């Protein structure tokens, strides 16, 4: 099947404007007849749901949290990019676009990225109007900082809690619409299946997580804003509840999953400290603005960091990348950390850590300045590790953080299943093989506020409202499937806990499909995963019943999908026989150990079509063309 990206013709800078005009518009009187389901109410879903409601569509929104205010967008610390050029440092839409395409290692769709850069400006305006308390200078203007591998200061921030403030802005807009009765909100509800009727997405099956009721909801379009799948690694910086279920269920119903192997490992997280660990904590990348990363030159160093003299330290990022230094992009910084740890120069009890040292910055700027910039992060670090980073260098290690892969969407953010739209981290489109810092918030809000409100109208203008009702046979069938799956889970009554399986899967994925991958390891993982899955279905113990709040059952349902999805991820990683961005195949690296792309064979999006559990999915390729930014080896030296 040919994948049509629907990218409009014309010069890059005019594509979106031209396309917007070409999109059909639903008349105001007709909008209320159309019903849209939004699943997930973080930055992307929340902003989309609020915007739809403002336009007059009938909206029903779902989230697994008790309130939309708790979506994991809230945890983003550093900031949000926008090409405002407020700092007069020669930033522009084009530069943000260029940086993002290059940062994504030439595996994203140029037209989408350009649009993202254009819309970045509107996002800041919108958020300020909503009352988001961005940091400001004494003159009353917005403050900016440079962030995560950018040479210009284009990042807007609200202390270390930018994600929280943006989400609250979006939640408030959504709350307003809920209060007005324009959005029907269902918290503590989990989507367990997508319903497709005659090839069109027409609704979902939802489990009420309090009563256990499994119910059908029909609509004219379904928007998935369900985030990423980082928890396939068990340990990640994602919230405990983040899962792949909604996206994976859509995949099983025919939506293509694109580039699942593109996962981002964030370089600055607090290292793992024990088997019982439930999640990893991210320390904002902004720390790299003032902190210097190093490891001892000597293997098996036992001295405490402050006793190691300057000439016995290896500031490896500064050494390898003189121009970017500690600000090298995430994938590079993470891989370099893994490299030095693999060499046996890692620090901390486990040897899986590197130092992030602020002593130079404290000497230069004073402790007060550092406290003002990173006080909350230092505080958090101390709380978790019981070490004072003002005196002892922090220990950091990379951790799974963001997933660039996701459901395939065209320029309209619609999947190959008409009527199914996918936005935010759940889609694949804008970040290529690696996401730059402060871009996730930008993408989520661009999709939700400024793209999908237009593009969904184009689709809806072509369908009859309310065509399919929740009593349609397909709904009944899906409901039955879901109920059977739940019943089966509860009746296995094996010996091992759900988390036990999740941990096992996570460890395997981290080893074989984590920061660095190779053919042998991936093949091994592809053999192992089905075994774990088989054992799961025979030996898992899920206690309790369906007709109650059952957290054990919730987790089990999610792990079921991770167990299948992991296989897809490894298939993709194996198929993509090149290194690019966050996907690093050890077979393909330059002499200096950099990712080596194979542009001749892999300048495409790999979109996978589900066939059968345990069977290899079908691959569809969307070729990527680079008109504006010529393909080049990334260099941050």
């Amino acid at each position: 099947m040919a994948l049509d990206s629907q990218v409009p013709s014309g010069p890059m800078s005019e594509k979106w404007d031209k396309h917007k005009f070409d999109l059909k518009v639903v008349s105001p009187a007709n909008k209320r007849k159309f019903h849209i389901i939004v699943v997930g109410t973080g930055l992307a879903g929340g902003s989309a749901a609020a915007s739809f409601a403002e336009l007059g569509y009938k909206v029903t929104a779902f989230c697994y949290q008790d309130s939309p205010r708790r979506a994991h967008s809230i945890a983003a610390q550093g900031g949000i990019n926008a090409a405002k050029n407020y700092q007069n440092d020669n930033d522009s839409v084009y530069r943000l676009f260029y940086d993002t395409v290059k940062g994504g290692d030439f595996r994203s769709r140029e037209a989408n990225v350009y649009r993202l850069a254009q819309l970045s400006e509107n996002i800041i305006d919108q958020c300020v109007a909503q009352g988001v308390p961005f940091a400001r200078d004494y003159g009353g203007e917005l403050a900016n900082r440079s962030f995560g591998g950018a040479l210009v200061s284009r990042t807007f921030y609200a202390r270390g809690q930018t994600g929280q403030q943006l989400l609250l802005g979006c939640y408030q807009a959504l709350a307003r619409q809920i209060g007005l009765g324009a959005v029907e909100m269902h918290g503590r509800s989990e989507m367990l299946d997508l319903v497709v009727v005659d090839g069109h997405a027409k609704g979902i099956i939802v489990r009420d997580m309090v009563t256990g009721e499994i119910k059908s909801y029909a609509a004219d379009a379904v928007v998935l804003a369900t985030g990423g799948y980082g928890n396939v690694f068990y340990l990640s910086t994602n919230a405990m509840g983040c899962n792949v279920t909604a996206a994976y269920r859509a995949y099983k119903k025919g939506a293509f999953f694109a580039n699942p192997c593109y996962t981002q490992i964030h370089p600055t997280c607090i290292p793992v400290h024990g088997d019982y660990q439930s999640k990893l904590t991210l320390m904002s990348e902004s720390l790299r603005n003032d902190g210097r990363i190093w490891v001892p030159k000597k293997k098996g160093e036992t001295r405490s960091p402050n006793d190691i003299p300057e000439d016995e330290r290896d500031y490896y990022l500064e050494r390898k990348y003189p121009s970017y230094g500690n600000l090298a992009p995430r994938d590079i910084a993470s891989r370099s950390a893994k490299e030095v740890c693999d060499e046996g120069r890692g620090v901390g009890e486990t040897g899986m850590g590197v130092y992030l040292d602020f002593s130079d910055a404290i000497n230069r700027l004073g402790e007060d300045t550092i406290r003002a910039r990173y006080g909350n992060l230092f505080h958090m670090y101390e709380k978790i590790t019981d070490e004072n980073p003002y005196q002892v260098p922090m220990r950091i290690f990379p951790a799974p953080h963001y997933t660039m892969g996701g459901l395939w969407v065209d320029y309209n953010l619609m999947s190959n299943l008409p009527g199914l739209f996918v936005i935010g981290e759940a889609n694949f489109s804008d970040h290529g093989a690696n996401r730059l810092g402060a871009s996730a918030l930008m993408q989520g809000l661009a999709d939700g506020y400024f793209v999908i409100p237009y593009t969904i109208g184009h689709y809806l203008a072509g369908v009859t409202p309310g065509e399919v009702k929740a009593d349609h046979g397909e709904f009944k069938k899906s409901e039955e499937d879901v109920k059977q799956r739940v019943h089966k889970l509860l009746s296995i009554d094996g010996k091992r806990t759900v988390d036990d399986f999740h941990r096992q899967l996570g460890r395997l994925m981290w080893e074989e499909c984590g920061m660095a991958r190779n053919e042998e390891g991936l093949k091994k993982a592809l053999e192992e995963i089905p075994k774990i899955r088989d054992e799961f279905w025979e030996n898992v113990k899920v206690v309790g019943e369906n007709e109650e709040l059952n957290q054990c059952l919730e987790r089990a349902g999610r792990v079921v999908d991770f167990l299948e999805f992991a296989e897809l991820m490894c298939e993709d990683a194996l198929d993509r026989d090149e290194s690019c961005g966050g996907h690093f195949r050890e077979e393909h690296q330059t002499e200096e150990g950099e990712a080596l792309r194979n542009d001749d064979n892999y300048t495409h999006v790999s979109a996978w079509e589900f066939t059968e559990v345990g069977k290899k999915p079908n691959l569809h390729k969307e070729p990527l063309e680079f008109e504006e930014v010529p393909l080049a080896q990334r260099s941050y030296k």
Partner: protein
Amino acid sequence: MQGVNASPTTASMPARLLNRSIGKKILMSFSGLVLLGYVVGHLIGNLQIFVGQNALNAYAVFLHSIGAWLWIIRAFLLAMLIIHVWTALRLYFENRAARPIGYKRKVYQEATLSSRTMIWTGIGVFLFVVYHLMHFTLIITNPQYSHLEDALGRHDVYSMVILGFQNYLISAVYIVSIAIVSYHVAHASKSMFQTWGLNDTNFEKILHPATVIFAWLIFLGYVSIPIAVLTGFVKLPEGVI
């Protein structure tokens, strides 16, 4: 998750004062302020005792001389007292209802004892006021002093107070009661500024200590009278039994 009621901004101002939680705070604070003003005024009047028999008795005569005004003031104070007590009781029962199931373990970190016991110290203050009125104003509890007159033929309040406080039991009740009043005032005066929204960054530095000092002044001022009587610093004039 939905179902917000229609806009209440059309409600009238009295309704917003009487029925909304911040409205009740405002009522508490203003009625409390008036009562506090009375406590201060009463103290200043009482302290005339240190000036002498003539001053205190003259003050009493002055109070009675304003005639109708006295009753207006008394009615106003009574109204404020009723508002204060009525609102306090409403708050108490509403607040209890807001937590139908309590904690097995509960530790307070910042809430002071005086703040948590306002309803009880309040009841204490109320009982004391009743007793105090029966003692000195209505002269029911110790009627034997009601006929005292000074050399000018005025009701001899001065001697009545001294005779009263020479009774250790009465003095003890009075001192304990004043302690309760001051304890009540300690939280009340601080709380009042918070309710009026005057708690800004300077508050902790200036107003908070000021309210504590104020409560102590009230306590010391009132208690100075029975102490002065008991220690013989203030004595009965010649000729009174």
